[in-house]
């Protein structure tokens, strides 16, 4: 009893041009078409390419950092002379530059690229751009030209930031804390270039967020009420709200920082009476909500993949949806937990309490996802591997956050490798793993090709094991007393650092396998059907890859997004998914 109106056939639609990937004839025509397109799908793909390129740069920096840390860099006495061994990145240092400085630049670039340029725009701008309109049955986002502009602004901002990297990079740490960031490299424009890049990219983020909020409000398909929206849409909606409300503050913050560097403005400069902690407040007012900009879309993806590949209605739809909004709301109230060791005690106590508040909706989500598996029909393809991997890693990431929210234990763990491990478990184990889940889930839809499942599963295991190898040990390291951002370190940590570095190489191998499967799929993959997994959400109504205008006929929603137990998925052979004999009723 498929109740969604399926395709009315190509003939009924006059201006049908075939899939959005169809070539326009010549290469130049294609380039011109893609460069000027306002199609959300093409912009999504363009974002994906740009993001993955920057992910590559950030990854190279991460590997460099790990290689540096293979040895503790000890100064030893050889024949009466003090000689430093093991400064691996130090060999790159020009004369007069401290070898540690090279490490500091690599570490900063890794952080800045990964946060500002990869993971903040990450899922919303790529997968969100592609699938948000499809999932609500719209032809496009609300403001298509703004969408294209956001891509250009993003690329322009990234180029600004990368320009600073090419001429030497900055060594402020991605957090750009004053007064160090106002004093370092005093005679050079690198820091200004990087901060200007961040400022520009803020606009891209605002444009995307604004676009998505309006799209969700105004372009839902006929019949799609708020509680008929897929949870990915809810998550992107919550994310977009944060993007709109938080990003301007980082805009003014980096603007002040730029003024600070150009004219010594004084607001954050203790030499003129400014308050460096004020900068931290400004910075984290944006940069904490940004953590949820990173993780909320991941929650959305997991809600989609876990239901689709377990063929199960999500457990507690409203709880999951409201948890997204709850997290978005509370995310604005917890920023100062990054500053327990620097601010007043009363503020620390208040923010500690509020931080625990944000843990509640997150816990609810995890409980709901695991309950969704109950009595499902679970298939172990790559997407499900990544989904279960996400649950494993994100649960660790979330639980290890508790000692950081607790005041007494955070006094020890703050700014140590424990924190590094924690946010990698959340950002990588959460967001990146979920993004990989989403990419495998939607790859057939995006490019119309299937990928090699065994190879992709191999990639998963390499990524999963490599990730745990790299980062779990860092929890222990941090609690033992290893501070962050150390180019050289006490000997006792060397074994743990070596394990961690080996893990990073395994991680690299995993990504190379994925790169291979994706490229292989594009060239030689089997054509995908419109709905290879039997999904219920609207994007599976479209062709694979979707048409230029998404749907041949505007879809009308007549059932919920996860009614796997009462409805046969669209575009799918009912023989494969028979309905249960006794549908569940109240």
């Amino acid at each position, binding site marked *: 009893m498929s109740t969604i109106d399926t395709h009315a056939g190509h003939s009924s639609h006059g201006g049908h041009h075939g899939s959005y990937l169809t070539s326009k004839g010549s290469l130049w025509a294609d380039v011109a078409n893609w460069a000027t397109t306002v199609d959300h799908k093409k912009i999504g793909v363009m974002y994906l390419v740009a993001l993955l390129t920057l992910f590559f740069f950030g990854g190279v920096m991460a590997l460099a950092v790990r290689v540096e840390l293979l040895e503790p860099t000890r100064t030893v006495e050889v024949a009466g002379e003090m000689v430093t061994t093991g400064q691996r990145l130090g060999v790159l240092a020009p004369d007069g530059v401290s070898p540690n400085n090279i490490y500091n630049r690599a570490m900063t670039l890794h952080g800045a690229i990964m946060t500002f340029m990869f993971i903040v725009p990450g899922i919303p701008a790529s997968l969100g751009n592609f699938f948000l309109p499809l999932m609500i049955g*719209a*032809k*496009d*986002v*609300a*403001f*298509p030209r*703004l969408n294209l502009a956001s891509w250009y602004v993003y690329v322009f901002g990234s180029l600004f930031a990368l320009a600073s990297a090419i001429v030497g990079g900055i060594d402020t740490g991605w957090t750009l804390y004053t007064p160090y960031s106002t004093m370092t490299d005093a005679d050079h424009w690198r820091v200004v270039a990087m901060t200007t890049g961040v400022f520009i990219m803020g606009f891209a983020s*605002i444009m995307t*967020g*604004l*676009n998505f*909020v*309006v799209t969700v*409000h*105004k*372009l839902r398909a006929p019949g799609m009420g708020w509680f008929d929206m897929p949870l990915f849409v809810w998550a992107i909606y919550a994310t977009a709200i944060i993007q*709109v*409300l*938080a*990003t*301007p*503050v980082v*805009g*003014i*913050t980096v*603007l*002040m920082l730029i*003024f*600070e560097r150009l*004219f*010594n*403005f*004084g*607001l954050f*400069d203790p030499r*003129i*009476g*400014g*308050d460096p902690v*004020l900068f931290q*407040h*400004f910075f984290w007012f944006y940069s904490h909500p940004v953590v949820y900009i990173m993780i909320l879309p991941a929650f959305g993806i997991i809600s989609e993949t876990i239901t689709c590949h377990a063929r199960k209605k999500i457990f507690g739809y409203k709880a999951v949806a409201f948890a997204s909004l709850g997290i978005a709301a509370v995310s604005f109230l917890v920023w100062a937990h990054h500053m327990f060791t620097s601010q007043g005690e009363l503020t620390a106590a208040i923010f500690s309490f509020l931080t625990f508040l944000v843990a509640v909706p997150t816990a609810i989500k995890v409980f709901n996802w695991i309950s969704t598996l109950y009595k499902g029909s679970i298939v172990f393809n790559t997407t499900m591997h990544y989904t279960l991997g996400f649950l494993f890693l994100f649960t660790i990431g979330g639980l290890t956050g508790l000692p950081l929210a607790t005041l007494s234990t955070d006094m020890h763990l703050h700014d140590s490798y424990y924190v590094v491990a924690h946010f990698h478990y959340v950002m990588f184990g959460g967001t990146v793993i979920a993004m990989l889940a989403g990419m495998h889930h939607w790859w057939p839809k995006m490019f119309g090709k299937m990928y090699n499942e065994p190879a992709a599963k191999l990639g998963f295991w390499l990524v999963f094991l490599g990730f745990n190898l790299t980062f779990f040990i860092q929890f222990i390291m941090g609690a033992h007393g290893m501070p962050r951002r150390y180019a050289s370190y006490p000997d006792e940590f060397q074994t743990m650092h070596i394990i961690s570095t080996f893990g990073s190489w395994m991680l690299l191998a995993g990504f190379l396998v994925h790169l291979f499967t994706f490229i292989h799929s594009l060239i030689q993959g089997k054509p995908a059907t419109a709905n290879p997994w039997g999904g219920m959400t609207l994007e599976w109504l479209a062709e694979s890859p979707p048409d230029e*205008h998404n749907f041949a006929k505007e879809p009308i929603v007549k059932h919920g997004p996860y009614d796997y137990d009462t409805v046969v998925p669209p575009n799918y052979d009912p023989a494969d998914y028979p309905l249960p004999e006794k549908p569940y009723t109240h």
Partner: protein
Amino acid sequence: MSTIQPTRGEIRTGPMLPHETVQKGHHWRTRDDEFDAGKLGMWLFLATELLLFSGLFCGYAVMRLLYPEAFANGSHYLDWRWGGLNTLVLLVSSYTMAAAIRHTQVGDRARAQMALIVTWLCALAFLLVKLFLEYIPKWSEGKRPGVLFDYPYAQHEMEPMWWSLYYASTGIHASHVIIGMGLIGWLIYRNAKGWYGPKNYLAMENIGLYWHIVDLIWIFLFPLLYLIH
């Protein structure tokens, strides 16, 4: 004042004006949807503007709590008459902007054009006052932000901080005025071509909203900088 009659209800021959033939975007179901979406988008953008300025207000609040005397001295250096004049100029421009939208809504294109031009001129007047009566004299006296400060008759150690905040907040506000002038200029040009009418005035409405926010921020900046001491 205008010889051109309102177009509403008028039977007119000749080619259609652009605003009468505007079509909705291909992905919208109705033009009303498109209009509402455009306004919602604009309001979200205004939200980002408010938050952008909230950083400056926050800096002002914190520094004022720290150095109240410096800020009291600072406001004495500013002449409330010029600030007040600028406030009036912006208020009038806000009114003419709202009036322009009202005239367009009822189809009175010529009066709308006049209102837009007055708005633009007010913006220009604001900037001229700002530049020639405030920035240039103050800058040449040495009342400059941060380390550029060179005013020998200062009475408090933290006056450079005051000037930093003064230049940052009024400067960012003035840059908004400049952008607004560009946008209003574009409106004037397009209105002359007949792009705006009762059925198509979203762009004017949105730029109007932007212009009112610029006015709104000045409404707060004026007492904070010029009046409170």
